[in-house]
């Protein structure tokens, strides 16, 4: 997260680094459709207000909140349905199990365990505290395993 350029860096450079992080965080929280839409809204906001955004201390955290505001306005259901033509080996219950977690648990599990973010990085973007992220990551993973009847507790 700290690699995100600021100051006079060009928007395109910022976009390249911010897009995957914002999209993944908002998709984890709000589902594939609503999350992607929210990330698009947030990045568009950054584009329209680049002079302001580039001067922010934590632009990703700010834009994450912009994305959150966007989802509140749209009120799109949280859905993790797999796209058409998906790989057949993906666990069929996974979408439902993921949707069954709380928003914070999904954020922590997906970003920490799924994408390898450090808890501090999750905290910086989402505004949660590091211990809170760790707690949600642990509990969320346990709930996900339980829902999918995965009994290997390695890691």
């Amino acid at each position, binding site marked *: 997260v700290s690699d995100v350029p600021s100051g006079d860096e060009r928007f*395109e450079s910022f976009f390249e680094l911010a*897009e*995957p992080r914002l*999209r*993944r965080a908002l*998709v*984890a929280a709000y589902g*594939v*459709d609503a*999350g*992607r839409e929210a*990330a*698009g*809204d947030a*990045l*568009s*906001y950054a584009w*329209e*207000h680049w002079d*302001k955004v580039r001067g922010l201390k934590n632009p990703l955290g*700010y834009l994450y*909140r*912009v994305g959150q*505001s*966007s989802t509140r*306005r749209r009120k799109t259901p949280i859905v*993790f*349905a*797999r*796209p058409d033509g*998906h*790989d057949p*080996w*993906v*666990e069929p219950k*996974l*979408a439902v199990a*993921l949707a069954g977690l*709380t928003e*914070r*648990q999904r954020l922590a*599990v*997906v970003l920490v*365990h*799924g*994408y390898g973010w450090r808890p501090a990085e999750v905290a910086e973007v989402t*505004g*949660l*505290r590091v*211990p*809170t992220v760790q*707690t*949600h990551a642990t*509990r969320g993973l346990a709930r996900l*395993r339980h829902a*999918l009847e*995965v009994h*290997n507790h*390695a*890691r």
Partner: protein
Amino acid sequence: MPDDLMTEVRTMLDDGAAPITLDELSDHGSLATALPIRAPRRASWIVAGVAAAAVVVIVAAFAIITTGEDRQAVATFASASVDCAPSPDANLQVFLPLGATDEQIEAARVALAQTPGVAVDRYLDHQGAMSQFACIFANNPGLVGSVSATDLPVSFAVKSDSVDDEMIARLKATPNVTAVYTPADWQTHVDEERAGEVDPTTPYQP
């Protein structure tokens, strides 16, 4: 197995939500009315003048036909029906760090009071925080008994003219402030605490 599970999660989410391209940003053109800060207007002076006049007329009409109570458009903890609210009339709760000194608390109070559009409604000391905690966990006296008042952070219930992202960011930037809760944030937090999804030994952490 968790690695396999997480690989599946990544596959599902990355396949479902493809990367956003720069070209797509123009498709989000309705943002000016949707997001916290409106985009700069490029309307002519004439159009801007007409718009300003219309706003004046609408505001004046609104002021004439509404009571003072009706004009308070920002949801308060009471109007949002939040359980165990810090103050019915406030619309934000601003938390200070655990162990905040009297000087830090006073400095935060002054800073909040000096923030345009913000008025401090109530200070919740450790005992006030304990009352809130006891309200949340009214059905779990064992848990309430295991926590002492000084384990909980003090806070201010404040009345703010707005509760948008800019205001929240501004309040979060206030010295010695660790978290800012809207009524919606608060109810979510209460629900999560009651469901055991937040560590009750570290309550009220954002």
